[in-house]
């Protein structure tokens, strides 16, 4: 690794102004390493996950290319490479490696990627989800919850095996049906990616974002539902 630091002792750190390398004072513009002296550089405060990977703020991502970039940056930024470096460089490496991992975890998953983007664009706070049943699913959700309740009650009462199996079977079918819906919703979501990525002006962007936010609500509702059923089925 070329980034492996050469000196073990803590050395006085130079100017830490934005746009200037702390070590050699050369000009830097958001690179992970100084183009002149190859020293690891701090994160500019406004770097988002897309920037960190050197990507435009676009939703359609090539998963294989993203992984390659992740591996490449891991080799360079991991704290193992800075074990003999100054404390400052160790801190930078730790911080940057953490952001790298956080960013990759977020960007590789389409749902997390959209959630993150909606946060960046100020459409909604990260993790803020409306837990409201979509009206068209109300009947099915109602039925599912009833089965769930019955199964829980039967478990508590130590119910008959035949009855429990019947309930389990029904729940599995319901889960299957919701699982399929989930895949449809995911497709709907990814359909919006190209709309957002292609939108030049802010109104259309905003429009796509709003639509994705709605789809995401639907998605997270169904996902929780499926998760609850799975938890109940796999508990024993």
């Amino acid at each position, binding site marked *: 690794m070329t980034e492996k630091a050469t000196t073990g002792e803590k050395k006085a750190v130079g100017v830490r102004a934005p746009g200037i390398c702390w070590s050699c004072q050369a000009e830097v513009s958001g690179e992970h390493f100084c183009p002149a002296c190859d020293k690891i550089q701090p994160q500019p405060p406004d770097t988002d996950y897309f920037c960190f990977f050197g990507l435009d703020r676009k939703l359609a991502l090539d998963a294989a290319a993203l992984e390659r970039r992740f591996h490449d940056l891991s080799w360079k930024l991991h704290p193992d490479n800075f074990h003999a470096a100054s404390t400052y460089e160790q801190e930078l490496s730790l911080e940057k490696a953490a952001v790298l991992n956080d960013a990759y*975890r977020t960007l590789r998953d389409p749902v997390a990627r959209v959630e993150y983007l909606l946060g960046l664009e100020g459409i909604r706070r990260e993790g803020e989800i409306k837990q409201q049943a979509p009206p068209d699913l109300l009947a099915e959700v109602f039925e599912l919850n009833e089965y769930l309740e019955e199964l829980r009650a039967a478990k508590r009462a130590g119910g008959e095996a035949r009855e429990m199996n019947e309930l389990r079977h029904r729940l599995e079918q319901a889960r299957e049906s919701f699982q399929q819906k989930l895949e449809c919703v995911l497709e709907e979501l990814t359909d919006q990616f190209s709309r957002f990525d292609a939108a030049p002006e802010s109104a259309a962007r905003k429009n796509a974002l709003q639509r994705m936010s709605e789809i995401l609500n639907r998605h997270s509702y169904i996902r929780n539902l499926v998760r609850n059923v799975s938890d109940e089925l796999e508990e024993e």
Partner: protein
Amino acid sequence: MGRIVGIDLGTTYSLVAYTDAATRKPVCLADEQGRTLLPSVVSLDPAGSVVVGWPARERLLRQAERTVYSVKRLMGKGLEDVREELQLFPFRLAPGSESVIRIQLGEKIFTPPEISAFILRELKRRAEAFFSEEVSRAVITVPAYFNDAQRQATKDAGRIAGLEVERLVNEPTAASLAYGLDKHQRALIGVYDFGGGTFDISLLRLQEGLFEVLATNGDTHLGGDDIDNLLAEKARAEIHQQLKLDVAENPELYQSLRNAVIAAKHALSAEERTTLRFPLDARGDYVRELTRAEFESWIEPIIERTLGPAKRALKDAGLKPEQMDEVVLVGGSTRIPLVRRRVEQLFRRRPHCELNPDEVVALGAALQANILAGGVEDMLLLDVTPLSLGIETLGGAVAKIIPRNSTIPASATEMFTTYADNQTGVDIHVVQGERELVKDCRSLARFTLKIPPQPAGLPRVEVKFLIDADGLLQVTARDIRTGQQASVEVKPSYGLSDDEVERMILESIEYAEADFAATQLIGARNEADAVLRATARALAEPQAQELAPEERREIEQAEAALRQALAGDDYRLIRERIEALNQATHHLAEMLMNAAMQTALKGKRADEVNL
């Protein structure tokens, strides 16, 4: 800077290894008797010195209450966590064990990190003897499923032993490094690590030297110990029934019963049946035939418990068992044939077991040490955090901020504000675990964010939670409005404070020299006893009559000299005289050997003799 060694601090055995600079191959270091394993057993001598390893293990049979084993299971634990388990161990707890266990050994009280430190110090010494220089830096392995408190306790143990812990590495990941699977261009690897006290499963993707853990799961309370305890309990119940004697009432006797069932367990890994023989003085022996089938039917439920975590890890990684390209077995308990069959059934492929399952983790630790020392640049480990990190929200619920199986280092940033005017603190409670409610998760730490008095909702304090490459949590806070670092004093829920660790470091230095001599002395005495017994036996053989008188005199003189040394407490002198006696009996041993050979060969044709 000095060299960095790799240490496997195991439940049953501990080892130290280093990577040879020239060959880049890791090697386990042996003690003077050529043994790489060091039993993770510590005993306090009535004279007040500490004995570690093999001699300490012997003391379990004579001074069970002054001896502690499997202390790894108590690391980072509080009283409530181990109440059930302690019934099976002979340890006595001292008061004040709520958040850190305190074990009473004779007149003294030790915490699990201090006891582990005695083991680490012994390994450190072994390395120093080998390199003839001070060794003060180490990579130490921990079970992948260890939580923050257990990891911190391990790091504390290192500090108390005078070691700079350069990295904590997960055991299954270390093992995958050692297996040399990096020759693969791209492969999926499963590591099934079933040790003395803990079980881990890790799934990795390997690509051109990059070892990327995809998911890990496990049980830090599941291992060979559980099998031993189960067998000992079965035997105890049978003895009680047949001979009306409760072995459990006598800790030393119970320990020898435990040793007997462990021997039977080991035998059944190779044989279809074995005889469990346990002498009980006046009441006759307890003798029992045990078949492998019966043994397997007993331990089956314990082995089954490893499959749940294995399936959860596969699910988290989004993988099917048959997708794994290689499966590797680690840990002594994987010698059990039933374990191998179960793993093979699950992954539908024959698992690797070429490397000694006891040594492979230490070898991997030595490789990671070499990576940190800069000796390797084409290998990199990307590990994950085994448990989700969360913070308590209103109503005792958990808000997850870093999900399990996130690659480490990992971080999360949360914004906090105040609800009342002039509120000067915000309480934050950090937990680890997968459940929805705080009460079902593991409390990690609490702290109060200090905030200058301001109107409600105005302060904006950003708290950054960072899990570092050791899997340990770091917390920093920053006031967004002023840009100032806010002070964060994290109080761990389980574990030692910095002051306590500092004090223990000082205390342990006092122990160091005296203990080393004491351990050596016991080892040397045991060996001297064995050599003297063997000599006496040899001299009684008929062939010994043929010894020249001066030879016999020499042997007798060497014997007397050794006995004299035994009366003192200089272990070096004892070792010297053992060596002298060995020299003196060299010819006698040869004569006996030849005689034995003649007997064995008698009646065989020359072409049958294949020497």
